[in-house]
């Protein structure tokens, strides 16, 4: 049993009650009522909402500027527009059906391991009184806050991809691709990793099992517990740890970016002309806002405001700092100059790597994680990329996918209590509390690898199909003349700067 996130509406509990066979609607009612009686703590609500705002700030203006600064002046607005459009588009899709596909679902769907259903489409049942579970027994948050928090994750993930095919993909193609991508790639992966029945559902079922006296009752209760445990996403059931989205966000977007870069081909002039960043100032602002906002992303993923939140916060802080230094000094040693771009790239690599680990590792583990991730990413963005010659324009693969994979696997290591990690938890062992579960490093690492592979396969193959499709519909790539003139003028009819 491991920590992850979940939504527990009244409906889910009732459905569960129905599934129990023996339970009649009347019996279920008090349980549901009891669940409803849980009132969110206002400190948690405040923290979750401000975290949500922080994650939005990561996308706009954070990511938009981080990326925008790295392209040439003539494509600045195209990057800013793509990110802003994606955020807006996905936010609307999310409340229409995305949230439901990711977090809606009842256990009787055969596909429940892979995708949700339409039970929460148009936010059905998600009003100001609905609550969602956290990772602590008996602690809930307003479901609208949980929904909004998750929305920002759905918004930023596709926006990450645009860095890979920056400066050459048509705006219309980006719009269509992103609608498809979130629907067929993001929502399913988010569901696989984060959908589960919540600590109270597990605890209650375990309690019922413990209380069962007759053999018959035990069998029924065991079936009920199995149903609760089965009512979760595939990777969740596998036991994969992903505190804030290493697989869901970074590997997912990173591999989609690589596939896109391959499909679209290189920019005109790539490898011949200097395609220098037009404003490292903007890139630095973007990186800084990413760092600041990432506290919402990682520490917000704890849903509550408690000691674990502070731990995730600290891990996010120090892994990033260590990775920034690591890249800085490595580049200084290898290339002779410590560059700002290197340092901020390291910071982002650190943020990526610590994302899945943030609530599981200890601060010293996070420092080590940060120190190690930068050299790996550095190797990919400089050596590997130039060796294979793909034009992953802003290094979405090299930083997000590679850093994400490293972080995901290392999470299996750093969660180890003897390395300062928090260990695994079991919500069924001592119902009503988060008990300590057995941890074997090799086992956990192997689970993490499987989760990585699953994500790479789903997103890699799925994205390839979608790129192909969009290419057939509107064509992916801007005309050479348009690319040369810059997408700002040709796609958007504007110029970024008129000094």
């Amino acid at each position, binding site marked *: 049993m491991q920590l992850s996130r979940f939504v527990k509406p009244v409906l889910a509990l009732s459905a569960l009650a129905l599934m129990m066979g023996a339970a009649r609607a009347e019996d279920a009612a008090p349980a549901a009522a009891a669940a409803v009686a849980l009132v969110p703590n206002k400190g948690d609500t405040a923290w979750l909402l401000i975290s949500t705002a922080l994650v939005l700030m990561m996308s706009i203006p954070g990511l938009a500027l981080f990326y925008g600064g790295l392209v040439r002046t003539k494509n600045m607005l195209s990057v800013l527009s793509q990110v802003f459009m994606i955020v807006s588009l996905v936010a609307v899709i999310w409340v229409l059906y995305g949230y439901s596909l990711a977090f809606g679902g009842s256990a009787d769907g055969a596909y429940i391991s892979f995708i949700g259903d339409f039970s929460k489409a148009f936010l059905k049942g998600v009003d100001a009184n609905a609550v969602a579970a956290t990772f602590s027994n008996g602690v809930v948050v307003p479901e609208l806050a949980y929904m909004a928090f998750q929305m920002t994750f759905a918004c930023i993930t596709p926006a990450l991809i645009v860095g890979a095919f920056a400066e050459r993909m048509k705006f219309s193609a980006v719009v269509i691709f992103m609608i498809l991508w979130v629907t067929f790639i993001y929502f399913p992966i988010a569901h696989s990793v984060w959908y589960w029945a919540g600590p109270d559902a597990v605890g209650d079922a375990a309690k019922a099992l413990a209380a069962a006296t007759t053999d018959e009752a035990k069998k029924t209760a065991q079936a009920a517990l199995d149903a609760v445990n089965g009512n979760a996403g595939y990777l969740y059931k596998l036991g994969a740890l992903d505190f804030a989205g290493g697989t869901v966000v970074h590997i997912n977007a990173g591999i989609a970016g690589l596939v896109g870069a391959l499909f679209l081909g290189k920019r005109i002039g790539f490898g011949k*002309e200097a395609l220098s960043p037009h404003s490292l100032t903007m890139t630095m602002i973007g990186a800084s806002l990413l760092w600041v906002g990432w506290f919402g992303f990682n520490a917000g993923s704890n849903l509550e405001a408690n000691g674990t939140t502070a731990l995730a916060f600290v891990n996010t802080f120090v892994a990033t700092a260590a990775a920034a230094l690591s890249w800085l000094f490595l580049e200084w040693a290898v290339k002779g100059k410590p560059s700002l771009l290197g340092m901020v790239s390291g910071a982002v690599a650190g943020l990526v790597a610590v994302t899945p680990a943030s609530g599981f590792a200890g601060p010293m583990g996070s420092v080590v994680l940060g120190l190690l991730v930068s050299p790996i990413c550095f190797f990919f963005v400089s050596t590997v990329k130039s060796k294979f010659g793909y034009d992953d324009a802003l290094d979405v693969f090299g930083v997000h996918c590679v850093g994400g994979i490293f972080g995901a696997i290392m999470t299996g290591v750093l969660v180890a209590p003897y390395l300062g990690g928090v260990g695994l938890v079991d919500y069924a062992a001592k119902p009503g509390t988060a008990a300590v579960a057995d941890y074997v490093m090799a086992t956990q690492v192997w689970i993490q690898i499987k989760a990585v592979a699953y994500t790479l396969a789903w997103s890699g193959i799925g994205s390839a199909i979608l790129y192909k499709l969009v290419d057939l519909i509107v064509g992916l790539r801007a005309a050479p003349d348009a690319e*040369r*003139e810059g997408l700002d*003028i040709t796609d958007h*009819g504007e110029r970024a700067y008129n000094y």
Partner: protein
Amino acid sequence: MKIVMAVIKPFKLDEVRDALTAIGVHGLTVTEVKGYGRQKGHTEIYRGAEYAVSFLPKLKIEVAVDSSLVAKAIEAIIGAARTGQIGDGKIFVTPLEQAVRIRTGEQDSEAL
């Protein structure tokens, strides 16, 4: 001596520079300019207000060369800067009476 001044499309700079150095030109000076001519510009729209932009970004290259090199330089520039589309630009040749290298005070051909 002459000054060969060419107005070209911005992305052709590296090729023109290479073509010129290939024929023995050792230095040149480049200026970002806006060109108005037959090449039509584009329209920019800001909150519904449309502006026709008729000045396009170009680069102006100035090269001081010995008179003997002028023809070759023109050829080199045309070879490198031509795309065949309107707006490829112009080459203008003007007389240069004296050239001095500031560092050494060398004059004329020596100074180029």
